[in-house]
């Protein structure tokens, strides 16, 4: 099953490498990984998407917790949560296609953020599945480039992951 693990870790050089290293060394799956500092500059927040059986996910969270730089972590998939990912997608858009693409972007509530005679660049935000759906919906031959951030996530409700 797919899991989104959210990690609060010391903003130290090498902390990211420790997490990445753990996944390769132990042969765990890693689908995506995003990191950025938080409002507290001494901490960074990492969102990691992985998949595996319950046993493997249990090991992954235990092994992550064991890393000295990891302060706290939560498996968001265990409770209500919101997941967002941003995608920048460049599409071939000529004459007749332009209207149709624009309509599709509207349906997905995306934005066209760059335009040339022959192309549109679209910004789209949502759960990973929505971005996948958009890619499915456009004609494959029109896609010039896809850039995705990988999901970040947050738990629902008033509580937060903090120290």
């Amino acid at each position, binding site marked *: 099953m797919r899991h989104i693990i959210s990690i609060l870790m010391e903003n130290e*050089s090498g902390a990211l490498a420790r997490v990445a290293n753990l996944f390769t060394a132990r042969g765990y799956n890693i689908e995506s990984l995003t990191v950025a500092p938080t409002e507290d500059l001494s901490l960074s927040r990492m969102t990691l998407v992985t998949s595996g059986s319950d046993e493997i996910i249990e090991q992954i969270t*235990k092994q992550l*917790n064991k890393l*000295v730089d990891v302060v706290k972590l939560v498996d968001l998939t265990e409770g209500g949560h919101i997941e967002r990912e941003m995608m920048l997608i460049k599409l071939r858009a000529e004459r007749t296609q332009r209207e149709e693409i624009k309509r599709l972007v509207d349906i997905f509530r995306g934005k066209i953020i760059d335009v040339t005679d022959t192309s549109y660049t679209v910004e789209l935000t949502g759960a990973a599945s929505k971005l996948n759906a958009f890619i499915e919906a456009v004609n494959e031959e029109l896609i010039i480039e896809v850039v995705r951030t990988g999901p970040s996530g947050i738990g629902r409700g008033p509580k937060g992951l903090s120290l």
Partner: protein
Amino acid sequence: MELSGGEIIVQCLRDEGVEHVFGYPGGAVLHIYDALFKQKELKHILVRHEQAAGHAADGYARATGKPGVVLVTSGPGATNVVTGVATAFMDSIPMVVLTGQVPTPVIGSDAFQEVDTVGITRPCVKHNFLVKRLEDLADTIKKAFYIATTGRPGPVVIDIPKDITDPGIKIPYHYPNKVKMRSYNPVVKGHLGQIKKAVKILMEAERPVFYTGGGVVLDDAAKPLTDLVDTLGFPITQTLMGLGAYPGSGKNFLGMLGMHGTYEANMAMHETDVLIAVGARFDDRVTGHVKQFCPDATIIHVDIDPSSISKNVRVDVPIVGPVKQVLKDMLKVVNEGDKKPKQQALKKWWKQIDKWRAMDCMKYDKKSELIKPQQAVEMLHKVTKGDAYVTSDVGQHQMFAAQFYRFDKPRRWINSGGLGTMGFGLPAAIGVQMAHPKADVAVVTGESSIQMCIQELATCLQYDLPIKIILLNNGYMGMVRQWQEFFYDSRYSQSGMSVTPDFVKLTESYGHIGMRVEKSEDLEGAMKEAFSHKDRLVFLDVVVDPAENVYPMIAAGKGHHEMYLSPGSELV
């Protein structure tokens, strides 16, 4: 007090209570060596290869429970020590390893003797640091000792660029006496509810077994373990790393378990209904095929490391906590409760175990003219009255030492279990003898293993270390040869080791005493003579039967009930 970085390092080590540093100098650590030169308290032991510095510090830590300390230079000094670090990591040994690094301004420029030490060691340390500011140095050293010695112990590497130790730059010195890290808070107590639940299950058990490991030794929990086992009257088996925690001569001891474990220990594991694992990690050399491991058992597991629990084998009652404290609490719950173990069932269980024991699975030919390696280890036990510190390398000799020395005390059996590092034995003995100058320290080794760190004979001479090396010389990488005999139709591919130096002469050239013994009847005399030299290193080359194999044996991936037994052993 204003100190330079080099002086700060020396001062921190002294404030930490360190007495011995095992190391080797080089460009990047010259400032530190200069600071060492100017003081007397901290003793530096100059090894002959950085790998040995790692193993010596490791042996010191295993024998004392105190962290071992290593100091080596950047680049090749650091890469040489990696085997030592990985060896300590696999067996959870507390160690602090200081490595020199090129000056901060040139890091990343492929400077002379630059390697990414933090990157290279990351997968085999508990944690590592690169010190980027002089102001962080003392704090980092404090943290390193704290991390290395608490929770599940392990090696910590501190990489120190040369400019940080510049004698021209001094700052006020202060060594913190406490550390608090929001990201690192090891468990200090096991959950009482879980402990009670475990005791309840133990009282219902009909065929219980204790399976204990290195964690008991590391946490100095031999006493509460022995008390608990004896109070309950349960059988106990120990892993290669756990030997000596419960006395080898204790009546409830079934011997070691696993690949070369005893018949009774492995059969008890296979038939048990309640397994209580303490400070052990269900390593593949212990479990064999996990699908066939303890098929009928409810499993209780006590361990300080949550990630050890249910890693290889699903556990029913996990107890995360320091084993010493958990065992004490368990004993208290047992003593204060009104339930007693099931005597009737236990009696039946012991009867079954005695049947397995009667098979005498470790018997060997005692009438042979050729010296049997088992016999040599038994003789070592006799001559040292079972009270020596025994280090070992890796191979058949290691298994014979583990099986036949019958360790009665913890921290006496010192070997590389997890990584299985040939070359460990002699340098580890240096660390042990440094810690216990008066004790008998023996290295049980093979002619192949000993050659991997033989240069340390010079270190032994320099520091007057009266180590006794017992070489079980079978002219083969015996353990490799055994696998080739069993699983590759006796095709002995590259496992012969008949071309060796004359070990007697070699030892003599290093300034020690060399001896050789070839006949069974001369063994006792030779061994006694070796140990009569109280203040000299003696290298005893014992020529043993080259065809001897280690029994019993469970082939990799097989179940505990599928053992190879020694020729002549019979099932009863």
